[in-house]
């Protein structure tokens, strides 16, 4: 281990070494000083306008703007990120409207998520483009510059509309705001009135309509027809706010609400915009049939999945794996997905809006005889056999085939000793929230399970076994469905259950489709017809509304209106007096239009906003408990045909949601509060009413 010898050897060479080391040290010093003499190290991934305002760069710029548009799609939820771009769709405003229910939310869900900053970021980035792109005519072309600017103005309008829906009038800026030397004054812009805000949005859209071609340069981008279709939505909102809104004026500015005299003007714009794209799009009817209800139902479901649908006007596409959502995994029925599966539960209240079901005088599903005993059905699908095809295209009903499986919906099973021939009295009287357990007959004769996927089967006298509860619920613990239904709209029917996973869905979200434009048109027309404008541009408003509604109904396979006068200006049905009577409206005609809108546009994140602009939300959803429909199977005579399908006699019990969840929409929710930070940082910014 000794290094003594080496050392001696080294010492002999002192002089040589000494010189060498001096040299090396010197070289090292020089090298070191030179090599590291740079502290100006440029960044690796920062580019400038010159690179961005080019053909390729504009794709990237616009990809940023389009991806940040506040589209309430599969990734819209009340959980985070201003409500946008989250995968976990638990808390949605549609839980307040009675379209949908789930076990995660047992009361009013305040959808106020403070969408503000990210909206104004989109607006700034659009403004920057509008201001600066004209300087790059030489690198692009005038035509391209005009088109990109029009698109930017559409996106700006779309973003302002998202703000206006939430806050009413907002600060308007159409230029890049300066912030220099800490000077906040240029940024302390007060709110415009709601009217001015809508007018600003409409002017941007008018510009876009006038300056864009009719066809998109690339699919997924907007064109003049998209702008017109969107304008029909915006103007309809403005008209409704004028007619039904409650004005709130601070310092002479009507922050929310629009003067009522403006209503007809906006409804006219809505009508004209909708009418202007007539013939450019059509309702999807590829497999529609006047006779085959199933084909018509599938046609309706397919319109949301068919990439070549003529009904689609504006959409947001996804692309695995770069941009995905989780709609199938989270929203499929439990036994049709690898995870979740308890979020998409249409309420019975919603289902009852549809035609072709037995109903009582209140407009509710009739599943009992006059003496209060249950009607016994020979098989589970029988109750819904003749329903309006659109219902089957929107909702998965008990026993409905899907994904090569069947929805297996059963609250419990009556034990074999119970004979279907012997009438059974309704377990819990209509209108009560009492639990089934309070009924001794029920406790003695019904088998049920708390979880759908871990059940103790009932053994039949035939030796066969059946589950007491369906694989898709409803369970006694309110797992799986809490309403007795699952949703179908937008679900991919071809995705096998075992591979229905998170972050792998890529269906396109249809933000605007022609059916909505027809409904906008019908509503605007009827509002005009019933408020003194019988015709616009030579078109009869009453007749036009009638035609549009029937066009929708025909495609839906629903019962058609017989006469334009069916959309009457007479009194609406009082709640509890007929089908859809809980849908509030000033006239029977508008009630029918609103019911149609609900049926057609449910689960598309539209109805919450509709109920706000109609100002019916607080009255309609006031200490409301949604209703459900529980199927029960008779073990006697039951024959399992598939793991998720048992042929046998059924009864259906309609009742209040068993969680006893009550929903009330407070009037404060008509507008969201301006975020507190904004009020604090801008002394000119006034808060909304009641906050």
């Amino acid at each position, binding site marked *: *281990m000794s*290094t003594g010898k080496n050392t001696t050897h080294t*010492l002999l060479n002192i002089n040589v*070494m*000494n010189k060498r*080391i001096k040299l*090396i040290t010197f070289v090292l010093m020089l090298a*070191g000083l030179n090599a*590291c003499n740079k*502290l100006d*190290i440029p*960044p690796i991934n*920062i*580019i*400038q*306008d010159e690179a*961005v305002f080019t053909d390729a*760069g504009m*794709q*990237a710029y616009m*990809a940023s703007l389009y991806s940040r548009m506040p589209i309430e799609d599969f*990734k819209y939820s009340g959980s985070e*990120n201003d409500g946008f771009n989250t995968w976990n769709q638990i808390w949605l405003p549609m839980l307040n409207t009675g379209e949908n229910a789930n076990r995660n939310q047992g009361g009013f869900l305040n959808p106020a998520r403070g969408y503000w900053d990210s909206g104004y*970021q989109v*607006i*700034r*980035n659009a*403004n920057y483009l509008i201001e600066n792109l004209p300087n790059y005519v030489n690198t692009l072309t005038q035509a391209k510059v005009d088109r990109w600017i029009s698109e930017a103005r559409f996106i700006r309008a779309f973003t302002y509309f998202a703000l206006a829906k939430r806050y009413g009038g907002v600060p308007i*800026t159409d230029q890049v*705001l300066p*912030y220099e030397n800490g000077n906040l004054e240029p*940024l302390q*812009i007060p709110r415009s009135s709601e009217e001015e805000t809508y007018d600003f949005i409409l002017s941007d859209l008018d510009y876009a309509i006038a300056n864009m071609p009719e066809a998109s340069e*690339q*699919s*997924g981008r907007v064109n003049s027809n998209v702008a017109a279709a969107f304008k029909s939505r915006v103007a309809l909102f403005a008209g409704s706010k004028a007619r039904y809104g409650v004005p709130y004026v601070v310092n002479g500015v009507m922050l929310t609400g629009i003067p009522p005299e403006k209503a007809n003007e906006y409804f006219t714009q809505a009508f004209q915009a909708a009418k202007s794209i007539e013939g450019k799009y059509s309702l999807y009817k590829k497999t529609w049939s006047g006779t085959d209800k199933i084909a018509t139902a599938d046609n309706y479901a397919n319109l949301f999945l068919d990439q070549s649908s003529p009904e689609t006007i504006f959409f947001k*596409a996804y*692309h695995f794996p*770069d941009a*995905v*959502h989780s709609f199938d995994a989270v929203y499929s029925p439990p*036994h049709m997905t690898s995870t979740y599966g308890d979020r998409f539960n249409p309420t019975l209240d919603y289902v009852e809006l549809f035609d072709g079901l037995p109903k009582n005088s209140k407009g509710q599903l009739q599943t009992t005889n006059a003496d209060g005993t249950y009607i016994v059905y020979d098989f589970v699908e029988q109750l819904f056999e003749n329903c309006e095809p659109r219902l089957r295209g929107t909702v998965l009903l008990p026993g409905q085939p899907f994904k090569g499986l069947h929805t297996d919906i059963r609250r419990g099973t009556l034990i074999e000793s119970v004979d279907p021939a012997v009438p059974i009295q309704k377990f819990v009287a209509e209108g009560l929230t009492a*639990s089934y*357990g309070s009924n001794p007959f029920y406790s003695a004769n019904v088998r049920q399970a*708390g979880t759908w996927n*871990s*059940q*103790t089967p009932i053994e039949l006298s035939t030796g066969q076994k*059946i*589950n007491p509860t369906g*694989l898709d619920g409803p369970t006694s*613990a309110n*797992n799986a469905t809490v309403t007795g239904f699952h949703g179908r709209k937008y679900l991919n029917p071809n995705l096998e259950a*075992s591979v229905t996973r*998170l972050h792998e869905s890529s269906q396109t979200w249809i933000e605007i489709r022609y059916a909505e434009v027809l409904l906008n048109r019908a509503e605007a027309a009827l509002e005009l017809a019933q408020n003194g404008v019988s015709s616009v541009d030579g078109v009869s408003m009453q007749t036009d509304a009638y035609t549009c509604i029937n066009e929708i109904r025909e495609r839906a396979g629903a019962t058609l209106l017989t006469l334009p006068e069916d959309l009457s200006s007479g009194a609406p049905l009082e709640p509890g007096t007929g089908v859809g009577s809980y849908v509030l409206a000033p006239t029977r005609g508008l009630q029918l239009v609103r019911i149609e809108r609900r049926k057609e546009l449910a689960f598309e994140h539209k109805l919450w906003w509709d109920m706000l602009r109609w100002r019916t939300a607080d009255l309609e959803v006031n200490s409301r408990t949604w209703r459900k429909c529980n199927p029960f199977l008779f073990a006697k005579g039951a024959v399992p045909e598939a*793991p998720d399908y048992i042929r046998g006699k059924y009864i259906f019990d309609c009742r209040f949601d068993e969680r006893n969840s009550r929903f009330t929409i407070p009037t404060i929710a008509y507008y969201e509060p301006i975020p507190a*930070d*904004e009020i*604090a940082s*801008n002394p000119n910014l006034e808060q909304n009413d009641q906050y």
Partner: protein
Amino acid sequence: MKKIVFFLLACCVTIYTYAQEITVKGKITDKNGDPLIGAIVKIKGSSGGASTDANGQFTISAPPNSLLTISYIGFAQKDVQVSNANFNNLNVILTEERLDLDEVVVVGYGTQKKATLTGAVSSISSEELNTTKTSNVQNMMTGKLPGVRVVQKTSEPGDFSNEFDIRGFGSPLVVVDGVPRGTLTRIDPNEIESISVLKDASAAVYGVRAANGVVLITTKKGQSGKPRITYSNYIGFQKAIGLPKPIGAIDRYTLFNERSMHSVDGPTLTYDDDDFAPFLNGTRTSTDWYGEVMNSTAPQSQHNLSLSGASKDQSIDYYMNAGYASQEGYWKSGSLKYDRYNFRTNVNAKITERISASIKLNGIVEDKMNPIVPSWEIFRMLWRAQPNEPYYANDNPDYLYKPTFLHPGAYTQKELSGYAKDKNSWIQSQLSLDYKVPFIEGLLARGMFSYDTRFNDNLNYRKEFDVYDYNAASGDYVPSSNNGPDQVRRSYGNTPSTLLQLSLNYDKTFRGVHNVKGLLLYERTKNSGDNFYASRVLGIPLPYLFAGISRDQVANSDINGIFTNATAALVGRVNYDYKGKYLAEFSFRNDASSRFPEIKREGFFPGVSLGWRISEEGFIKNSPALSFINNLKLRASYGQVGDDSAVAYQFISGYDYPYINGSNSGLPGGHVFDGDFINSIGFRVTPNPNITWYTSDTKNIGLDAEFWGGKFGLTFDAFRRSRSGLLATRLVTVPGIFGNPLPQENLNSDETNGMELALTHRNTLGNFGYTVSGNVALTRTKIIFQERNRDGNSYSNWRNNSTNRYNDIWFGYGYVGQYQDFNQIANYDVFTGRATLPGDYIYEDWNGDGVFDEMDIHPIATSINANSTAAAGADARRNIPLMTFGMNLGLDYKGFDLNLLFQGGALSYVSYGEQLRQPLAFDGNALDFFLDRWHPVDPKADPYNPATEWVSGYNAYTGTVINELAERSIQNGAYIRLKSAELGYSLPKSILSKAGVQSLRVFANAYNLFTITGVKGLDPEHPAEVYGYLYPLSQTFNFGASLTF
């Protein structure tokens, strides 16, 4: 014959020396009889001397009856009278004495004697460090250095995420052998010679990176004398502490029913007798998810082989070490395992009289095998897994059951779900040359160059597996695929960095009284990083890219990991002392960083410190009454340091391309046009052309004392650090309609105050030696200015304005107690609501307005995470103690040694979320401590019926969730624990030497042996972050030996 010759010879010698000098022979040993090698024997009043050989023996010629002075470092000097009786056999036993004064302490760019040190510097030696045995050096420092705060977050093998700071400042700069290196956690503890911690202006020589203090690690060098080969090892096992247990099926059903009965509008039973029956009658048993997935203990071990020595003429010394450490996790499948290999060679060579060179090479390779999901997620699964759900569908081991949440068993098994393998390696090399400049005595020129690099080599191998629903009715197993598709992702990166130091060092004493030291140093660093990754969906499940298919294949780089930055600095320092009595140090550093715009690039950081050794004054030195004072020193320091950790390039406008913060499941980094995904640009924050580092002023006053020959020592420090120009984003004061995020600006300021006290006591009573040392440190930070909006009203200002307020104020609700019965509820003077039940928590109506609401929030605790942007939530609740303390007790007796380290923290509070806050969160399961609750005697009774009889408990009736801001849910995280205990036995050298062994020590060691705390069910260090799911801390028991040849 021999004896006679010897006798004659002895006579001759005796006669001869009578005339002149005699030859004195003897042996110097310690109290155990072990020879002291190299002890100095001097004749008093003469220049003659000798030193002891390898057997501790010496021979010296001395006049008869002369006085010999025997000295040996670390031992008390002893004078021995030579006499006729002993001259031939002069056996001297020296007793150990450690005067701190003599210690040499490593400081920035040099060393200094502790006696003349003027800064607040704490240090520990290798031996002190190694009394604790863990794989992370930070944890070995716990409790041993006053002002060094270590909170261990997890014992997960290969996870080194601790809260580690100096004086509560934040993450310190770590310098290993003079080079900033981030490997403090991975160094082989056996390689460490000493650790110094610079806590005040003594760090100013590190300038712009030293705002949080500096940790200096010095590695070992070769020892003189006989070469030593040392093999040491320990083998032990780990056992989780503070790991709550989930409950069984019957309990879960019971709690679930309670929760649904807990409804004033309609109590219902979720699970009926049918559901309970199979568990009650034994046809089904609850699944013990822990038992299925985890082992109760996990092994760990460490082995080291080191060589240390020097050439005979001391011109070359060498130290070599090879270490291997291994630690396994609790998962039964063995999918969590950590292995580390450390290699080091340190060689110093004196090449000529004037030139010497040093080379230090260090290599670290670590291999971590992880389950495919992080361990915390597995704990989340385990706590959520329902005990009423089986492990296997239909108990058939061919089919994993599909649980409501995720299958923890599947995710711990690498054969099923895949794994993530992280292989990191570090190469650290440095060469330095010292040149003693001729003609100027005491001037030393030094050049040092280091090249370090780290390689990250990661493999993520994800496998798809099926779980099954068993349909008992039809007998079908219905598969659901999880974790798919099969995919492999490889990533590779490296981060080379270079450092060049050129310095002049000057050290000279003038006229014997003026001691002057000087340093002038130029330093350049360059750091860069590069990386790439590729992933492919697999055609055949093999953990290699080549097994992939073309669909969805990705090749890309992580832009955040591609960077280059550089710094340049000029450092100067002068130390002066007069007779070691009046001490002064001045230092500066001029730093320039590429992170900042040219105009804001350079900064000047001065430091000054002064000391007065009162003990050197005549009135103490010459006073017999005060002779017990070995040292008494007052010192004070002031310095400026900085921090350049701002996000780079905030002074440049433009766009990021591509937009890198996109996520495919959130806001994507692009949009689909014409069916293709087009990358988007990222809009950059508004540039800040003035961005620069923040500066930090540190002030420190201190007192060092040592009495009675080192028997008693004391160090006291009080400090203040004031930071200004802290980076903040003006987000809150600029209206959102501006539409662009703002850059960081140097806006905020704060102030940290604190103090430290360390006491030591050492003594030897015969064969029995002991050491007691204790330290306590206190730190607290106050916000001086925080960029924020003006408040709309005075309440909001009181509630939210943190200016001039401690940064750790935890606002919450006061807690009164629990309602005992309906009578109390009905008559309570604060409105309670109609759903209130006995056992529910009563929160304090603090403002006395008769309503319990948000206005009752007031300060109730401390230790909220100072850096949190949220007022509540897991990120805000950090149990980091403001007060830390440690007490070390060392005993040795006849070869036995015992070391006990007590350590603890106080002024810490913690509140846990999700499943630790409430039972049945996400309808999953509950942890055992939730069973201690209020509930009706009859589980089916309506709780709202006033006649219902209740059983009381610690928690409220299931369904009442504690307010997370209430005092009741905020637990005091104070604790004291026996952090480490080590019992060793060194075999007597007399036995060992026969076998050619220099020393052999065997030991048993325990870590986290016991803890005293008020925190319920969890370890007090267990963090609330990540919802409290982090892998638990562990208790370890190790057995080992150290053998030196």
